[in-house]
């Protein structure tokens, strides 16, 4: 491996690198990266971070400019070629193969085999050993190597995607929002690895919208805006506010301590809802005009809980009760029969996996944004396109979706902008209860504030929100109450003012003692603690 001795020689250099699609998405970027350096790449959604990373990883061909690796021209034509040169990338959007096992995915592209070209027998013990070793690096020893990855939660999949790229032969590692789905524990695990690789002299590019992470782990920072490099300096030399200002071009209000919203009438009550041992008899109550946050580790069952409440999966046990403003409460034994039924009663869901479960990727933004209620932009079944355009234009503007036009296929948008389109769908169709699974996943600080503002407005209109997020800071900023899930149980519920980051984390760990810190109170009327 390269030595750390001379910090002078850059391992990777970009000279005037740019990319045009229909419009220019990257101007001329000049950057360099030294061995053992961790470079933060940050900027608004659609600023070009992923595109720049993909150029380095051989996934996108630059329109102009050159790359140098160890001073030699470097123009990888494929990801494979870049990897052969030791440049690896953890992609923002997952690229695992659902039907293949964890072990096979970890080794994909170089599955160990004996004899006979590729028809050769897979060397299963070598495969298992390799997979085990990669998993151990992310502290994932518990995952069954023979489970097809399609069965795992998306957070776990993200961890596997990372583990797959933590190879010893790596010289440059590009991490594109690796922690967007991760909770603090997994993030710490990743940081340990980053430090280990750093010590080995691996250069890294770290893309994230979580500024506190950048501060914790990176040495230098490059800020992109509209495809331009607006700043490139040591991380420590900028304050958080300065970073944001440079990214967004305007100051963003980052009020971390909003007052508790007044609790309205009871909107939704979940009683003993459960499915297998993924979700174990969860009970909770949502009130109009308030946000209920859910924290928990990856795989703790948060997503599954929302799916059960929404009727996307059928519960084995328990019930959901909805209390509309007028009329009698609606009781759904075992949850709603189908998402359509949930929606008919005003319950909506923002899914966490926008690619597989949220968006119609080849279709335009316009169609995706109004999908939750196409009838609202139609008269007697006939689409009123002009009306639809006007509505979508409003969403695009309010959420600052960066796109060429609303006719652009949503698959061409940057990750954060895709997320905004998913969110817009529920602005289009107001709900009584909105379940949000990682609603700001991959969204930049500026747009995050816009989304919070919309959520605030929904609350003001009497909607009850249930927000799952892996970002504790976010949860603490926006929630009125926070429930912590652990092993499928709602372990504890905290009222605003009672929580600290410490207490929330403690409650999330399965092996932690009772939430004895005094801040958390046991999940009040909803407690259900029947360990298997």
């Amino acid at each position, binding site marked *: 491996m390269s030595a750390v001795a001379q910090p002078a020689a850059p391992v990777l250099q970009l000279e005037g690198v740019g990319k045009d699609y229909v419009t220019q998405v990257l101007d001329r970027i000049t950057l360099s990266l030294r061995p053992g350096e961790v470079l933060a790449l940050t900027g608004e959604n659609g600023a070009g971070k992923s595109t720049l990373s993909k150029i380095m990883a051989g996934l996108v061909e630059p329109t102009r400019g050159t790359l140098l690796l160890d001073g030699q021209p470097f123009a990888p034509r494929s990801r494979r070629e870049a990897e052969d040169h030791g440049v690896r990338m953890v992609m923002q959007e997952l690229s695992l193969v659902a039907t293949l096992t964890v072990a096979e995915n970890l080794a994909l592209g170089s599955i160990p085999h004996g004899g006979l070209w590729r028809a050769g027998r897979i060397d299963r013990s070598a495969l298992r050993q390799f997979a085990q070793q990669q998993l151990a690096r992310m502290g994932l020893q518990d995952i069954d190597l023979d489970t097809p990855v399609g069965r795992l939660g998306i957070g776990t999949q993200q961890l596997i995607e990372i583990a797959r790229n933590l190879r010893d032969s790596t010289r440059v590692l590009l991490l594109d929002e690796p922690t967007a789905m991760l909770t603090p524990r997994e993030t710490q695990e990743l940081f340990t690895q980053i430090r280990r690789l750093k010590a080995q002299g691996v250069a890294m590019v770290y893309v994230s919208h979580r500024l506190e992470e950048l501060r914790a782990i990176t040495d230098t920072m490059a800020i992109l805006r509209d495809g331009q490099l607006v700043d490139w300096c040591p991380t420590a030399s900028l304050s958080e506010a300065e970073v944001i200002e440079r990214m967004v071009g305007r100051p963003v209000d980052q009020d971390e301590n909003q007052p508790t919203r007044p609790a309205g009438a009871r909107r939704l009550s979940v009683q003993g809802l459960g499915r297998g041992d993924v979700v174990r008899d969860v009970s909770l109550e949502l009130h109009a005009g308030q946000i209920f946050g859910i924290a928990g580790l990856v795989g703790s069952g948060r997503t599954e809980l929302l799916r059960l409440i929404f009727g996307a999966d059928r519960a084995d046990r328990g019930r959901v009760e909805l209390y509309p403003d007028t009329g009698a409460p609606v009781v759904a034994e075992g949850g709603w029969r189908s998402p*359509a039924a949930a929606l008919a009663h005003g319950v909506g869901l923002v*899914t966490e996996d926008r690619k597989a479960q949220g968006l119609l990727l080849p*279709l*335009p933004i316009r169609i995706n944004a109004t999908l939750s209620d196409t009838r609202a932009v139609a008269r007697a079944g006939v689409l009123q396109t002009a009306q639809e355009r006007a509505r979508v234009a409003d969403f695009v503007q309010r959420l600052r979706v960066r796109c060429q036009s609303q006719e652009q*296929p949503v698959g061409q948008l940057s990750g954060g902008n895709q997320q905004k389109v998913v969110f817009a769908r529920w602005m289009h169709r107001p709900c009584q209860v909105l379940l949000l699974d990682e609603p700001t996943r991959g969204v930049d600080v500026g747009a995050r504030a816009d989304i919070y503002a919309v959520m605030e407005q929904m609350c003001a209109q009497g909607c009850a929100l249930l927000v799952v997020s892996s970002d504790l800071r976010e949860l603490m900023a926006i929630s009125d109450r926070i429930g912590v899930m652990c092993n499928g149980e709602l372990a504890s519920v905290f009222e605003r003012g009672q929580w600290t980051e410490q207490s929330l984390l403690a409650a999330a760990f399965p092996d932690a003692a009772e939430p004895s810190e005094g801040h958390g109170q046991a999940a009040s009327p909803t407690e259900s603690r029947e360990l298997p």
Partner: protein
Amino acid sequence: MTPAPSAADARKPAFLTGEAGTYLGLIAVLVLMVLLFSSMSQYFFSMDTLVTIANDIPAVAVMAVGMTFVLIIAGIDLSVGSVMALAAAVAAHAMLNLNASAPVASLMALAAGLVCGLITGSVSVIWRLPTFIVSLGMLEAVRGLAYVVTDSRTQYVGDGIAWLSAPFVGAVSVSFFAAIALTVVAQWVLTRSVFGRHVVGIGTNEEAMRLAGIDPRPIRLTVFALMGLLAAVAGLMQAARLEAADPNAGSGIELQVIASVVIGGTSLMGGRGSVLATFLGVLITAVLEAGLAQLGVSDPSKRIITGLVIVAAVIIDTLRQRRADARH
């Protein structure tokens, strides 16, 4: 399979005037074929030929409209040929043995088609089975029924329903105009109605649609019911033209229908398609068949040429489209 969403997947809905360019590749293929055949036979480029082709295509064109919707929701219906035969058989049976009037007999035929479509649709929806296998089962079972109803004999129906194939404008039949009208309406529904948008959405990502609160099941069911109904219409058109209900009618026609739709650029993987382009696909296969028959090409050569032209047409259309997309 989720190939990277390329720009190709994302043509703007082109309703009639929309983007004529979308259809340029197909029209080019069509013109090329007409020129070629005209140069080889002095009689090919004539009013007669045009009229015969116009009177030949309605049955396939009508089924191709339904099949376009079926393919867009990522389904397939192999049973259309059998349903067509059954519908004609039911009409013949009603007229010959039950003394039903032509309109009543036609309604019974349409009902039979609708029921077949509903069965295919609901079996695949209820048990979440691949439509390929359900419709393959129906292909066999419904053909058997058609034999039972006709007693395995071609039934002569006379001209009770012949008005369908009667000359309407010039020598061109009512059926042809009906097929044209249906195509236009269907294209409109596909691009301009809530139903059409849901159909496209289900074909693109059914799970996303479900989680957006749209129940895909009634939509799937409707599409298959429609397909059954249209296959019955095709059966009636055919029976009107031949004045007979043949229990073997339309055997193998499913592949011809699907080929026409796919030549028109509709994706078998769902989510993308155009009824107008399908109509051009139908024209291409019809011109090819008529041209080859008129030249008196031998059967083996006919098959070889047909095979090559199908592939060539799709290649030309694909290349043109990719070039157009690259310019975006």
